[in-house]
């Protein structure tokens, strides 16, 4: 079992990050080296004509970023879906910061005192609710008919990753909080960053709930590896497409 844990928490994680970075770069490179269409494909909004010149293009870019991040079209046409999507994506951002804090202190976040993963699984639970909503919505018509197997598999993968991640706080309480501390995680992750994966492995791989950590990291590894080859790439492409809708030069 320990060998399996060490594979998941070391070599597989390197592989996952490598596939994620190379795959994502490859996908973006393919876009960039493809020929431009050459004509404007803007959707024109009443009262927003005449955005020309440097300042005009800056405002177009800002509007496109706003469209991509705040999803105003979803808010207008399906407010409950918008609330769930905003909650989900905000949760992703919070969890991203939470994971970064496991590696090292982030000075700006140290302005208020808090422990590792202050939410104690609440953010993960919120995301589980959001994913369950998205899954239920996908089972109803017409989204069901539009869906392909990839849509369900990604939802399941995200759900399980979040589930095993959110459980970590409770699992620690079941097996004793002190068995794996934040310092143990930091030692393991900093060891990974220093390409010495075995350095901090003992602290995280030998506890009663290590199987939950291994399951969480295994699922996250899979998620990272499939990311560049699935619709999850919308996280990058949405900015470009929204800019095109706003009149980005062809």
């Amino acid at each position, binding site marked *: 079992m320990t060998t399996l844990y060490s594979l998941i928490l070391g070599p597989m994680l390197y592989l996952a990050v490598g596939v994620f970075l190379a795959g994502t770069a490859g996908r973006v490179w393919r876009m960039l080296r*493809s020929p431009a269409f050459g004509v404007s*494909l803007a959707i*024109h909004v009443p009262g927003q004509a005449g955005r020309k010149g440097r300042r005009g293009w800056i405002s177009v870019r800002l509007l496109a970023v706003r469209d991509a991040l705040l999803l105003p*079209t979803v808010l207008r046409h399906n407010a409950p879906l918008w609330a769930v999507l905003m909650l989900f994506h905000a949760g992703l951002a919070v969890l991203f910061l939470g994971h970064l804090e496991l590696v090292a202190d982030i000075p700006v976040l140290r302005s208020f005192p808090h422990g590792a993963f202050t939410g104690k699984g609440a953010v993960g639970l919120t995301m589980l609710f959001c994913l369950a909503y998205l899954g239920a919505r996908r089972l109803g018509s017409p989204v069901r008919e539009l869906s*392909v197997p990839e849509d369900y598999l990604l939802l399941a993968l995200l759900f399980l990753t979040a589930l095993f991640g959110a459980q970590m706080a409770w699992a620690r309480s079941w097996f004793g909080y002190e068995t794996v501390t934040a310092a143990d995680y930091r030692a393991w992750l900093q060891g990974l960053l220093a390409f010495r994966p075995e350095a901090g492995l003992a602290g995280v791989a030998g506890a009663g709930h290590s199987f939950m950590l291994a399951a969480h990291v295994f699922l996250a590894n899979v998620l990272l590896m499939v990311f560049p080859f699935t619709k999850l*790439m*919308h996280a990058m*492409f949405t900015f470009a497409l929204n800019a*095109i809708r706003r009149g980005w030069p062809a």
Partner: protein
Amino acid sequence: MKETIVDAQTLDEATRGKLLSLFEGRLSRQMLLNLETCSRCGLCTEACHAYASMPLVRHAPAWRAEVVRRIYKKYFTAKGRLLPRLGEARALTGSALEELGEAAWTCTGCRRCMVYCPFAVDTQQIMSIAKLLLIGAQAEPEILTMLADVSVSRGENVESIREGFLAGIKRLEGQVVEKWKSQAGRTPIPTEVVGADMLYVALAGAHSIVPAAAVFNAAGENWTLSFFEAVNFGAFVGDPAKTRIILERIVSEALRLGVKEVCICECGTAYRVARQLSVGQPFEVVSLTEVQARYLRQGRVKVRRLPGTFTYHDPCQIARNAGVYEAPREILRAVAGEYREMSPDPLYNWCCGGGGGLVAMGEDTLEFRMKSSRVKADQVRASGADILVTACENCHTQLEDLNRHYGLGKEVRFLSALVAEALEAD
């Protein structure tokens, strides 16, 4: 449609190779983004007038896009080759072509779905692949190809049509003089005026030339009429090469005459295509509606109010897809006895259901056009107006068909005709 060169299931390797090569030729950066980004959230379904009128999943924009996307996955992505079932990648077969045909020729290219989509996926762009593959398989609507070929041929044989064209214009001049004596001027419909300020590109038919001529003359415009019709059947059928050739006739004429502006008549697709593909030319492309609104703003024409309650249908290719929202409203504020907006936000105006070549296909598409545009008929009815105005030939024909089919009891008018009718004599 033509009888296809393929049967229902099979497609020979040579044909498939040729079609995939056509497909690959359309994979611009923008197209790749469109093909790679959909999350199939389904938000676009309610945006489509066809789905809203007939809630069948095959009318959902995301479904139409998936028909093309599945073939893309199969041949142009590693995932589609290795794990085709994950994304339901699909081989390019005869039955796939049939699906492409249904998707392409039930989409009017209005791009209303793009206003709903959080990622701004452009279904019209994706449908351009479907149309190109159908052309490659000789399975496109034959009538559209024939009309495109006639336009191309007209451009190649200008000299042979010159006499007949000028004789026809002479007859139309009589109509201008008869209705608008004081505005007609010495040459009611000028042609081949080198150094004219504006080249007006009309459609075949007096309705597109006579009222416009009256307004140009009343405004004292230094204009000249194009030898060619504005409509671009190459764009309707989805043939990029013919689209360019058909437009090129007008561009060459404009350059030869040295005009400052090319004014496109009330034809949405012609206007959008000319504007998009003429970037960098030494002339501006403007719509007739913009020109007439400018005359009113500058006081170059005087108009009276016409009795009745008016509403305006924003043609998708002129408004949502080209940005001309204010000009028609300026005109209607000047000439309409009473004006009522059809939609609280013109960005969300329903498509008439006749664009993308569907009206040009005539009776073949009539039943679908009527069924798929019930929401448009409801919107027109709810406006409470007596007179339904638009600035696009396709929309006008479709709205007249809807008017008859749903018994709306409206009078359907061209905006330019209203301006001409409202002209006040000096």
